């Protein structure tokens, strides 16, 4: 019973949203939007409380143990401070909340994002070593795309951008679409397995 009710709810909502997808009737659209937006937001809000409490508990325990204490203290200050700033002064432009968001959070996010440039360089170095014929073809294609995207591509040979576009639109796109078809079919079979109850791992694993 502990698993049968969630399974029934899952199957019912899956069937309803599946059928609503094929209807343009206002009632069907309303049901679809209610299930996918309103109900989802309610579930998310409750689990967010659980997630935030878990975050605070994990970090407090780490502080007690003296494990990565400075990082954990900064995390806890952030979690406590931001809601307080929002509740007292609001979240409009010029408020302390927005000041912290724009001057601390956004630059930190940009810093982490900018690390990607260095990681792309190191990953490319490993990926483009021409150890085999396939790797050599990959290297050739990558060089072609890189040159075509730089300003000297046209200067070397005016057909380079055209050749690069052919690589992107034909061999690369064919491989990508083949993978996408596999992913689409995999998603579909996984969804059917979950909805009809063949796959119950998400309920805790009981067959």
């Amino acid at each position: 019973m502990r698993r049968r009710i969630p399974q029934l709810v899952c199957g019912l909502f899956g069937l309803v949203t599946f059928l609503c997808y094929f209807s343009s009737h206002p009632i069907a659209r309303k049901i679809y939007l209610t299930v996918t937006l309103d109900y989802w937001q309610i579930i998310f809000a409750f689990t967010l409380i659980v997630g935030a409490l878990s975050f605070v508990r994990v970090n407090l325990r780490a502080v007690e143990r003296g494990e990565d204490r400075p990082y954990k203290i900064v995390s806890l200050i952030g979690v406590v401070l931001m809601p307080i700033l929002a509740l007292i002064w609001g979240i409009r432009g010029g408020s302390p909340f927005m000041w912290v968001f724009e001057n601390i959070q956004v630059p930190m996010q940009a810093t982490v994002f900018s690390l990607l440039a260095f990681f792309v360089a190191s990953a490319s170095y490993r990926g483009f070593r021409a150890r085999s014929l396939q790797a050599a073809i990959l290297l050739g294609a990558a060089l072609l795309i890189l040159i075509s995207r730089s300003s000297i591509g046209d200067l070397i040979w005016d057909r380079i951008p055209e050749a690069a576009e052919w690589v992107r639109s034909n061999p690369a796109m064919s491989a990508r679409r083949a993978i996408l078809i596999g992913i689409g079919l995999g998603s579909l079979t996984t969804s059917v397995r979950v909805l009809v109850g063949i796959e119950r791992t998400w309920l805790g694993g009981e067959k």
Partner: protein
Amino acid sequence: MPFYPVQLVLLNTGGAWFDLSTLPVFIAALIAIGIVLFTTYHKKSRERFTLRKIAGLDAVEEAIGRATEMARPLLYTPGWGGDIQRPTTIASMNILSHVAARAARYDCQLVYPTHDPVIMSVAQEVVRESYVQEGYPDRFNEDNIRYVSSSQFGYAAAVEGQITRLKPASIFLLGTFEAESLILAETGNFVGAIQIAGTDSTIQLSFFIVACDYTLIGEELFAASGYLSGDQSILASVRAQDLMKLVIMALLIIGVIWASINPDSTWWRF
């Protein structure tokens, strides 16, 4: 605004109950669902058959064994891009269940940072159940399944920090990833972890192929549940995927021939 059943009779009834423009999708969906259900429940279709070797899934045991021998944790994360409604996340949960069972058996620490509190709650149940089924409920630590941040780069920084500090022996990057994929995979590479990755994003797949030891490509991620558990019902649905691929291949060939003979025809463009 919430919807109440009583509104069924009060709402304006304009629009079609069945939108004919979705008919081709509806028929294709019914055929696909029919094939999956037929192969799953038809006795003859469920006769034992084997899947081809998938290196990334065979390496799961190796990765867990390595972490156990090195007495270092396993780190498993589902990426920032997905939520629990996504089939990729469900497929990732299936693999998590298997990994958690092995981690419980070998008493290996399993750390699961996530960006979504719903995923965290489901993952806690999945991992707890795996520990219970293996007979080691006392080894389960709820704090190891952590919500870190809903912000993309907050999540990336948190997981990157955990990888750097914990130095896990093995890392599983299985789920829906976006720009954080390479940040995590390269950080894992720097700490010398064996990495198994899989995602439904074709753009991020290329990063994983370069930076990880094993990558599950395309439908391999979705076949993992049957492959790892050996459950014939699930394996039968994997066979359904192959049957559907045959149907798609046949349609593609017919479409190519038809378009070559009669380029102006449009009936096949559904």
